[in-house]
C-alpha cells in the first residue's frame, strides 16, 4: 500500500556505489505474506462456517433450480418437443439452471458484506492490521466456495434430467461453476462496496441476475435469434458459462448432428467460433477485473 511505497522510495533512490541501508530497519510494518494469507484464510473460513450454520439457506436456494427444472422444464417440454430433435428439454435447460443456482448463492454471499456493514462486523475486519485486498480476496473466495458447493448439489441431481454421471463431465461442470461463482461473487462484492442497505442490494440483484439468465440462452437456443438479441447474448457474461456447459453435456450424450446444430450452435464472434477455453478465460478475466475494482473500492474507502 501507499505507506510502504513512500517509505521505501528514499532507499531505492540512494545513489549507486553507496551501500544501501538495511531496508528492514525502516518502519515498514511487519506485514508478511504469511499474515496476509492467514487473513485471507480466516475470512474465507468464516464464510464457510456461516454457510454451514444456515441449513435453511442451503435448502431454500435449491427450490428455484427444482422449480425451473421440474415444473417449468416438464411444463414446457411438450411445447418445445417439436424443436428439440429428441433431446430432453430438461437436459437442455439444465446448464442454465445450474448457473442460476450458482449465481444466486454467489450474490447472497456477496450480500453478506452489506449485512456486515449494517451489523458492524465489517469494521472489525477493516481495522485489522492487514491489507484490505486480503479481506476482499478472502470474502470473494469464501463466497465462490460456497456457491460452487451449491453448484455441486445441483450437479449431484443431474441423472434426474438424463445427464449422466461421468467423471470428466462432472469435473468440467464443476470447474465452470467454480469460475462463474468466483466472477459473480466478485461482481457482487464490487457493488456491495457502495451499497449500505440490504433492500437496495436485493433490488440490484434481481435487476442483474434475471436479465443475465434470460439473455444467456439458458432457456432457449441461440441458433436463430434476431440480431439485437444475438448481440446482447454475446455481451452477457453468463453466455460464456452456459454454452460450454451445454457443449460438455452434449458430448456425453448421443445427440444427432442436426440437434447439436440447432440447440448448441456455439458462441461466435463475427462468425468465429469461440473455443471453450477462451470462454472460460472470458469469465475468469471478468472475475479478476471485478475483483480488482472491489479491492480498489475497499482500499480507498477510509
Amino acid at each position, binding site marked *: 500500500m501507499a505507506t510502504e511505497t513512500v517509505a521505501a522510495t528514499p532507499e531505492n533512490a540512494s545513489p549507486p556505489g553507496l551501500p544501501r541501508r538495511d531496508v528492514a530497519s525502516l518502519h515498514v*510494518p511487519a506485514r508478511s505474506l504469511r499474515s496476509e494469507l492467514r487473513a485471507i484464510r480466516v475470512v474465507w473460513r468464516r464464510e464457510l462456517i456461516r454457510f454451514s450454520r444456515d441449513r435453511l439457506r442451503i435448502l431454500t436456494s435449491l427450490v428455484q433450480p427444482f422449480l425451473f427444472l421440474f415444473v417449468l422444464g416438464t411444463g414446457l417440454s411438450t411445447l418445445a418437443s417439436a424443436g428439440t430433435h429428441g433431446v430432453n428439454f430438461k437436459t437442455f435447460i439444465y446448464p442454465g439452471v445450474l448457473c442460476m443456482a450458482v449465481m444466486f448463492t454467489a450474490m447472497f454471499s456477496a450480500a453478506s458484506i452489506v449485512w456486515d456493514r449494517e*451489523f458492524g462486523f465489517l469494521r*472489525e475486519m477493516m*481495522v485489522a492490521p492487514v491489507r484490505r485486498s486480503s479481506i476482499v480476496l478472502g470474502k470473494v473466495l469464501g463466497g465462490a466456495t460456497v456457491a460452487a458447493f451449491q453448484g455441486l448439489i445441483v450437479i449431484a441431481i443431474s441423472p434426474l434430467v438424463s445427464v449422466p454421471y461421468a467423471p470428466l463431465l462432472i469435473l468440467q461442470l464443476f470447474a465452470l461453476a467454480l469460475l462463474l461463482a468466483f466472477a459473480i461473487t466478485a461482481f457482487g462484492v464490487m457493488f456491495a462496496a457502495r451499497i449500505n442497505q440490504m433492500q437496495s442490494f436485493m433490488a440490484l440483484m434481481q435487476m442483474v441476475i434475471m436479465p443475465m439468465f434470460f439473455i444467456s440462452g439458458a432457456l432457449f437456443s441461440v441458433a436463430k435469434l434476431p440480431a439485437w438479441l444475438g448481440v446482447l447474448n454475446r455481451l452477457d457474461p453468463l453466455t460464456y458459462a452456459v454454452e460450454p456447459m451445454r457443449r460438455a453435456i452434449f458430448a456425453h450424450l448421443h445427440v444427432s448432428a442436426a440437434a447439436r446444430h440447432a440447440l448448441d450452435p456455439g458462441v461466435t464472434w463475427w462468425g468465429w467460433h469461440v473455443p471453450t477455453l477462451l470462454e472460460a478465460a472470458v469469465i475468469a478475466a471478468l472475475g479478476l477485473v471485478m475483483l480488482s475494482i472491489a479491492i480498489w473500492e475497499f482500499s480507498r474507502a477510509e
Partner: protein
Amino acid sequence: MPSESYSGPAVLAKGLVKRYEEVEAVRGIDLEVHSGETFGFLGPNGAGKSTTINMLCTLVRPSAGTALVAGHDVVRERDEVRRNIGLVFQDTTLDGYLTAEQNLRLHAELYGMPRGSVGERMQQVMEMVGLWERRGSLVGTFSGGMKRRLEIARGLLHSPRVLFLDEPTVGLDPQTRSSIWTYISELKRDEDITIFLTTHYMDEAEYCDRIAIMDQGTIVVLDTPEALKASVGKDRVQIQTADDEAAIEALQERFGIDAVLAEGAVTFGVPEGEHFVPRLFAELGQPIRSVNVSRPSLDDVFMSYTGSTIRDAEQSSAVTDMRRNMARMMSR
C-alpha cells in the same frame, strides 16, 4: 504481542483537525496521554470525541495535524498503530453467527497472533470478563452487556498497548455499566495498558486519571478530575422560582452573579453555598420555591468551562449532528 519496549507517551497529537465539507468536526487538538494512564474524553454527543478517536485509531484520516499512537504515526504507520491498539466501538462489531470463541479466534488470525499463544490468552481475557463458560455459545444469543464484555475481551486479545473504548457503557443498564467499570479497573491493575475512553456520563469520568473536556471540536480543559473540581472552587446552587428571567436578572444586579437556566432551574456557582442561601432569601426580592446546594461535580466543571450543562449541550448538538450527517451524505 508487544515485543520492543516503548516508553514515550501512549498518544501524542498535535494540531489534529478533521473537516467534513463545511463542517469542522475537530478543530485542532493537542494532546498527550501518558503510558499507563486511564484517560477520559468527556463531552456531549457531537463534540468531536468519536471523530478524534477515529483519527487516533487510523479509521479516519486527519485533515491536518499529526498524531502518534504507541510511538507510531497514524497516517504513515497505519498497520503498526493497528497492531498496538485494541478497539471497542459504540456499536457492536461481533459476528452473531459465530460463537464467542470463533469471534476471538478470527480476531487472533486477523492480527497475526502466534498460534501457540492464542488459547492461553483467550482463556485469560474471557475469564476476566466472565465469559469463559459461554465460549461455545453463538454471540447472537448474548445480551447487550455480554456482547460489550466480549468486545472488551477481544480488544485485549492481542495485548495492545492502548485500549480505545468509545462510549463503552452507552445503552447499557446501570448494573451492567458498573460491572463494565469493574472489569476496566481490574484491567488497569493486571495489565500494563493505557486506556483511552470517551464518555458522556459525568460519573464515569471520575474513574479516569485525567480527563479532557471537549466541546464543539476543541479541548476546553485537561486535568485530573480532582484538580478540575477544585478549579471550580464554588458550590453549585440551583433554585426554582416563579419567574426565572427576573431571578437571573436580580442575581446579576444584587450579587453580581452570572446565573443560567439549566435543566429547568436557575443555576449558578458561589463559594460556600450554605452561607450564601440565607442572604439569597433575604436579598433576592423574588419568591424562591426550592433550593439545592451541592459540592462541585464534574458537571459543574463542564458547566464552568463550557457555559452549559452536558445535557443541554447535547440537545443543541443534535442540530450540529444533523448538519454533519448531511454534509457526509453530500460528500459521498
